[in-house]
């Protein structure tokens, strides 16, 4: 199975999702990220979803799970690049993504993580 590449940039991990996500890839990403956080001692994870044209309940749950598990592993997750149409759809679907930090793009996401909180804008 194709796995999504996870890049290490300083104390952070970056995943830029560039393909149409299959559910098995979503599950693998969750597991790979947990492992990489522990192996590298990363303090932050940036998930770039700029290229994703939809986020459904399955992908939404993965984002929430990664955010929760990174917290347990003493790291923070920021989701960046959500398209406006995707955000509108997510709200109507009923997915709140409560507790997930977001930022407009990778740069702002990285800045948010290194500043240790606040808003990513």
């Amino acid at each position, binding site marked *: 199975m194709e796995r999504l590449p996870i890049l290490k940039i300083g104390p952070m991990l970056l995943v830029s999702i560039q393909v149409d996500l299959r*559910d098995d890839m979503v599950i693998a990403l969750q597991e790979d990220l947990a492992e990489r956080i522990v192996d590298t001692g990363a303090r932050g994870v940036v998930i770039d979803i700029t290229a994703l044209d*939809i986020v459904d309940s399955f992908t939404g749950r993965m984002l929430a799970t990664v955010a929760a598990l990174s917290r347990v592993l003493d790291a923070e997750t920021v989701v960046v690049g959500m398209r406006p149409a995707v955000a509108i759809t997510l709200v109507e*679907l009923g*997915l709140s993504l409560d507790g997930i930090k977001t930022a407009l793009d990778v740069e702002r996401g990285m800045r948010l993580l290194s500043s240790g909180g606040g808003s990513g804008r």
Partner: protein
Amino acid sequence: MTAQELPIAGDADVVRVRQAVRAAAVAAKLSLVDQTKLVTAASELARNTLTYGGGGSAVIEEVFNGLRKGVKAVFSDKGPGIADLKLALTDGYTSGSGMGLGLSGSRRLVDEFTIETATGDGTTVTVIKWAR
């Protein structure tokens, strides 16, 4: 566009269904937000077909109402059916490990939503999204 039937037997098929629904939504000139809503609903319903229905198919076609164009997608399986439809359509109800948003959420995302199901006799969910 003539009706297109796609099998739903694995994760890769769910991706193909999303892509075919997207293409049909673009062809019917749905707005970007409406395309996104329809494709998201299709993703939820195709996954339900696979997960709970044990696989099945999606039929995607362009529909007309006077001058109005729309996209219809029909998801069918020959699985166990849904015993309590009202419960299944409740936000947050899942019999598995999901978030229970697939059915209730996709109903909100489309213009027309119907379910035919009978215990032991499979499930067919039909959705339509109209161009504005």
